[in-house]
């Protein structure tokens, strides 16, 4: 099964809607709640990053009997130092973003923690591609 979502960079209210939809689909497919929660948290963090740091983008979800693969692609500013960005507490979020309850610099570490495999490709000035994989038992 393949799912596609376009995420608007200006719609803070709608941000997270794609993650919400995917969570619903996984539930309908009878995936274990523990697995759904892991995927929901990592996808939501990635979706919020796309909205807050990269002005939106596109999400592709591939579900097979063996794995769930979520690819989030944006054409934002890119991440200059990925190793630094992966550290807990590192954030370039504005005061405005912080007032909304985000920007603690826990998103990327959280995505790492809750996904079975996480790969990030990013190029400054071009954009970022995040791939989250969860293996199904």
């Amino acid at each position: 099964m393949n799912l596609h979502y376009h995420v608007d960079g200006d719609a803070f209210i709608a941000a997270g809607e794609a993650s919400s939809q995917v969570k619903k689909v996984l539930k309908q497919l009878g995936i274990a709640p523990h697995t759904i929660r892991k995927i929901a948290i990592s996808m939501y963090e990635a979706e919020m990053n796309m909205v807050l740091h990269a002005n939106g983008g596109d999400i592709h979800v591939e579900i097979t009997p063996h794995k769930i693969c979520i690819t989030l692609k944006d054409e934002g500013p890119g991440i200059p130092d990925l190793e630094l960005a992966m550290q807990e507490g590192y954030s370039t979020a504005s005061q405005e973003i912080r007032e909304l309850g985000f920007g603690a610099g826990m998103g990327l570490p959280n995505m790492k923690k809750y996904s079975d495999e996480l790969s990030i490709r990013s190029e400054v000035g071009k954009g970022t591609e995040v791939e989250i994989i969860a293996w199904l038992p």
Partner: protein
Amino acid sequence: MTIEEVKKILQGHLVVGSDLSYEVHSAYGSDLMSDVLAFVKNHVLLLTGLINPQVIRTAEMMDIRTIVFVRGKKPTQDVIELAQQKNMIILTTSYSLYTSCGLLYQHGLRGEEEANELALPR
């Protein structure tokens, strides 16, 4: 502790939901959704002073069904509708985050890490 008791202790108002007999076994208070996503492991009662839609989204991702908005903050209609769609239970209270948590704790509702014997973040 039931939502009924939470409501009474916090002199709260029910703004979404109707199931006052719903039980919570631990709680977490924070204005940082990033921390909620990073540290909460269970179906807690979430207390927060933030009232934007991403509080509801965060709760949804974590399978959190119950939220208390503190400091007399009133959620807007779009936030209320989103919470209704997600079948959540939302209370508001005039007490601050500190006082709300303190009152519930005093009445026996323990924190997430204590109730579930989680390791503390370093």
